[in-house]
């Protein structure tokens, strides 16, 4: 074989190889979903889905597997996190995209990027050191007693290991996720639109409110959804601060037990009780499905926004 032929064959082989690897890794999500489905099938085959999702009894020894308290735990913590994170993240991204001078931006952006890489256990320790005592102090203070009359603010748990602590820690964790995407989307709004608005006499803020944000809305929403799904699937930071009591939380100060914490805490005993492993892997499948739906829709919106920008 001549040299040219060898080079051509190498190229063909490399092309085939990289294609196969690319397709295989792209299907990894599907593979993970299938593997989890196969292993959790025993639980979905023996129990009606309604009972699994809405029963409040979780007693593996008595063959009762109700995800409801854990689903509610996850939802409470995630929603509290989002209520805290959304306004702060939106205002910060608007500032970074519209107001920040080049010098401020050059300092702030790398800091936010770096904070995205901080491991979740570190957020967890920080929560234990600072946030849990803070919540505890609020719960036992005058303000706490006044709040206690309001719905969602009753204080039945004085420890500080609570939905609120988990929400605060998670909110800080998702700051960089939401800010980096939202800032990029806002920045991608064509300058011409802004100039047209200014030319009509609108102030900077009016331009942002009526032109820029309206144009960027789907992308900003996608950024929020990405943040939500990140918080939804977070394990380590949450497990350390929410108290892990299997109950349906009724107040910000109640302890909760999110799905992720359930999986992480029970893996040691799961092989010894029938159906237990299937139930836990079923919980993992539930997490995966929710996060996939959210991620996929957010990414599709973002892809289109970037393409049209």
């Amino acid at each position: 074989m001549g040299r040219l032929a060898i080079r051509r064959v190498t190229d063909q082989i490399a092309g085939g190889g990289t294609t196969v690897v690319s397709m295989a890794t792209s299907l990894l999500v599907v593979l993970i979903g299938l593997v989890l489905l196969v292993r959790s099938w025993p639980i979905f085959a023996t129990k009606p889905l309604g009972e699994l999702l809405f029963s409040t009894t979780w007693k593996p020894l008595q063959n009762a597997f109700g995800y409801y308290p854990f689903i509610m735990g996850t939802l409470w913590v995630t929603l509290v996190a989002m209520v805290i994170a959304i306004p702060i993240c939106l205002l910060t991204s608007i500032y970074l995209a519209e107001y920040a001078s080049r010098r401020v931006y050059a300092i702030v952006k790398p800091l936010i990027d770096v904070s995205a890489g901080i491991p979740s256990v570190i957020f967890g320790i920080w929560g234990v050191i600072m946030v849990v005592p803070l919540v505890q102090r609020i719960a036992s203070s005058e303000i706490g007693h006044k709040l206690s009359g309001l719905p969602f603010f009753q204080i039945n748990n004085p420890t500080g290991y609570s939905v609120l602590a988990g929400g605060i820690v998670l909110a800080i964790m998702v700051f960089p996720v939401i800010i980096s995407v939202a800032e990029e989307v806002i920045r991608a709004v064509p300058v011409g639109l802004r100039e047209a608005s200014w030319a009509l006499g609108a102030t900077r803020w009016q331009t942002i409110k009526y032109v820029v944000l309206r144009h960027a809305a789907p992308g900003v929403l996608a950024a929020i959804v990405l943040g939500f799904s990140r918080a939804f699937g977070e394990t380590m930071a949450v497990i350390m601060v929410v108290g892990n009591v299997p109950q349906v939380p009724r107040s910000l100060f109640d302890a909760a037990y999110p799905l992720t914490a359930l999986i992480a805490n029970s893996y040691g005993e799961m092989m010894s009780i029938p159906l237990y492993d299937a139930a836990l892997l079923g919980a993992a499948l539930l997490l995966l499905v929710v996060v996939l739906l959210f991620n996929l829709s957010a990414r599709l919106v973002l892809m289109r926004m970037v393409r049209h920008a």
Partner: protein
Amino acid sequence: MKRLRRLEEHIFQFLMGLSLLVVLGSLMLILGTMLWRGLPSLSLAMLTQTPKGGYYLGEEGGILNAIIGSLCLAGGATTLALLFSLPVAIYLHTYASQARIAHLVRLAMDVLWGVPSIVYGAFGFIVMLWLGLRASLLGGIIALACLELPIIVRGMDEALATIPSALREASYALGATRFETATRVLLRQASAGLLTAVLLAFGRGIGDAASVLFTAGYTDRLPDSLFRPVASLPLAVFFQLGTPFPAVQQRAYAAGLVLTLIVLTLSVMARWLSRRLTRHVVR
């Protein structure tokens, strides 16, 4: 009316400043707290010894097992992830003949990036059982490699996307095949970006706990075999914080500080390298 508009503008500017302060302040607060609580209990013995008997009651020993274990886990996982991500990156920038398919691959990677690490842990656990392994270094490497894969691919993809197409065309015009262009021009041009992607993925891998929880297990020994359990820093933090002894909890803070410093160093190094190495690249 005009005054009202100006007032609104001022109020929102104030709120934006406040939000930025909260975001940066919380980051500083976290780093500051780690330093303040971690430094006092950080000692040379902690970094150079494995846990001795009674370590978890507050006696002699250190977390060398976790430090080395984490390096092995993240190193192995990054290597394994590289084996898969390099071909994908090359495919995206040379062989993907239709933009649609490249879009789909990128979408798949973005979605993979969003999968919670505990799900990778559960997946790794099942794969491990099927392979007949117990909790082991190899199990942890497999789970972490899945977690790191999308991070490396997207990082490399971005690095390769910055290469001007004229460079590629010049290479083709000289008669180079696509493979030669990819390995000798594209990868070389983007080497700084590729390295950055690898370092960032390594940093993510070393800090992740949920995926190694079931798959790597935990041990007081130094890692000696692919098929034995291995300790990791994030789990060292988690387990020590869970004990009722204040002396052991202090060590959790110190372990946390070590982990934070490693991750920050990697992250800063990655950014510095990417700026420094791109100086001599053709634009």
